[in-house]
């Protein structure tokens, strides 16, 4: 098959789409256009090994530079796309260039939600390598670090800062950590460990305004307290990058709406990764996922479909986070569970939580039990016809 595939976004989804198209034998042109200016590279280590200084920038690259030439993947890095013209089948870039396509793959990801409070101009957010470099440099100078948002990224940043002996405060609006995705038993373990490491956790409160005095900041919280810091970071969720799609008239609803193959409402335009909203059989509904697994597997599904092989997207969702000695691996989507059971030993931070809905196993979270996680993925993959309390 030939033609011109243009991919917008060089994150996990965009890169994978290019790699999979070549693996599937696509013989036409592939252009990868991205606002990011570095060679495509991994995101998860940015809030973990990279900031800890354990992983170098080179180690994050998906492929060596020569790969792009060998595989005839044209890179247009540091280039922002500003418009899609679906009727004329072309893109327009910030600098006014037109890029024609026969197929378009949108892998535009998501952008950090800005902190909605006065004085937030100096707050730093983490989404890409440039952000991580900036945060790394500022972290070295800072003594007191305040982090707004007790979700995965906020807490991974808190762990890195605490390990570097900073005075760390986490401000979280919810009543517990990672509330949206974890049950109380797991939130509790993470809270205990963070507190043991000296991190101050402030729950049920939000940042109302940030005042700058000389080189330091004072954050006013809604519960009347204040937090003093030399560096303020925020991880309060993301907004899918759907502006291009919306302006082009593609159907969007919490992400760009796609069918089981990744096609948008315009059949030669696909959307994959954090920006895409797709039916997920393991969640039993439409949703938008923010994970490497989802970005990679949706890209593979779309590349296959583009090559004429129609396999509906059906991969067990999974995700991980790493903070101190805590390695949490999540398989399936636990939202909507009506029953759960714990196996292992919560006292030693090694246990798994099994979630059921209507008597069927729907998800398993494993804390420092990697063997359970791998088995769980196989169980969930094999089909959710398992009764509650089945084989462990």
């Amino acid at each position, binding site marked *: 098959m030939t033609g011109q595939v243009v991919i917008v976004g060089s994150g996990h989804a965009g890169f994978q789409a290019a790699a999979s198209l070549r693996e599937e034998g696509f013989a036409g042109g592939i252009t990868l256009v991205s606002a990011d200016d570095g060679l495509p590279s991994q995101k998860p280590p940015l809030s973990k090994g990279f900031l800890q200084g354990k992983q170098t920038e080179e180690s994050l690259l998906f492929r060596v530079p020569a790969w792009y030439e060998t595989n005839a993947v044209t890179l247009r890095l540091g280039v922002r796309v500003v418009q899609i013209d679906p009727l004329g089948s072309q893109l327009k870039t910030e600098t006014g260039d037109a890029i024609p396509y026969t197929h378009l793959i949108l892998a535009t990801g998501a952008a950090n939600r800005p902190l909605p409070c006065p004085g937030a101009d100096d707050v730093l957010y983490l989404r890409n390598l440039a952000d991580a470099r900036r945060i790394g440099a500022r972290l070295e100078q800072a003594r007191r670090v305040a982090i707004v948002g007790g979700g995965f990224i906020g807490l991974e940043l808190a762990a890195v800062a605490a390990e570097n002996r900073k005075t760390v405060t986490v401000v979280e609006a919810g009543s517990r950590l990672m509330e949206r995705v974890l049950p109380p038993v797991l939130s509790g373990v993470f809270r205990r460990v963070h507190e043991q490491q000296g991190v101050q956790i402030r729950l049920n409160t939000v940042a109302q305004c940030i005042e700058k005095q000389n080189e330091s900041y004072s954050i006013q919280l809604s519960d009347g307290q204040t937090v003093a810091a030399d560096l303020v970071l925020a991880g309060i969720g993301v907004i899918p990058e759907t502006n291009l799609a919306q302006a082009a008239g593609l159907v969007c609803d919490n992400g760009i709406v796609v069918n089981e193959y990744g096609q948008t409402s315009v059949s030669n335009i696909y959307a994959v990764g954090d920006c895409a909203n797709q039916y997920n059989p393991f969640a039993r509904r439409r949703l938008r996922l923010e994970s490497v697994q989802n970005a990679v597997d949706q890209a593979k599904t779309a590349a296959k479909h583009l090559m004429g092989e129609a396999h509906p997207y059906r991969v067990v969702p999974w995700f*991980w986070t790493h903070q101190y000695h805590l390695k949490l691996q999540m398989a399936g989507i636990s939202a909507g569970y009506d029953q759960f059971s714990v196996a292992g030993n919560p006292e030693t931070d090694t246990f798994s939580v099994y979630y059921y809905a209507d008597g069927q196993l729907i998800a398993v979270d494993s804390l420092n039990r990697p063997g359970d996680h791998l088995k769980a993925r196989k169980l969930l993959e094999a089909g959710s016809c398992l009764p509650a309390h089945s084989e462990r």
Partner: protein
Amino acid sequence: MPTITYVEPGGAQHTLTLPLGATLMEGAVQNDVKGILAECGGSCMCATCHVYIDEEFLDLLPDIEEEEAEMLEGTTAERRPNSRLGCQVRVSNKLDGLIVRIPDRQ
């Protein structure tokens, strides 16, 4: 810089010179050696970077830590005495000439 030879499941060989400190997984994936998925990018979270190490070199490798041992229990291809996770083995001068075989499934 040490030279490592990867043998893909289909038999194709790639001999690569890798920078010190790179992992066997990175060396393979970044150079497009087929057969290693590395879904978690080297975080010891996925067990899809399973490789078989040339017996001669086994003793020169870093010890298997507990989490790697547990992940090795869950590999898709058969676990053998010379099984390792590619992301947990860093390339050093001692490993110059190492042959790494990639299983047919991950």
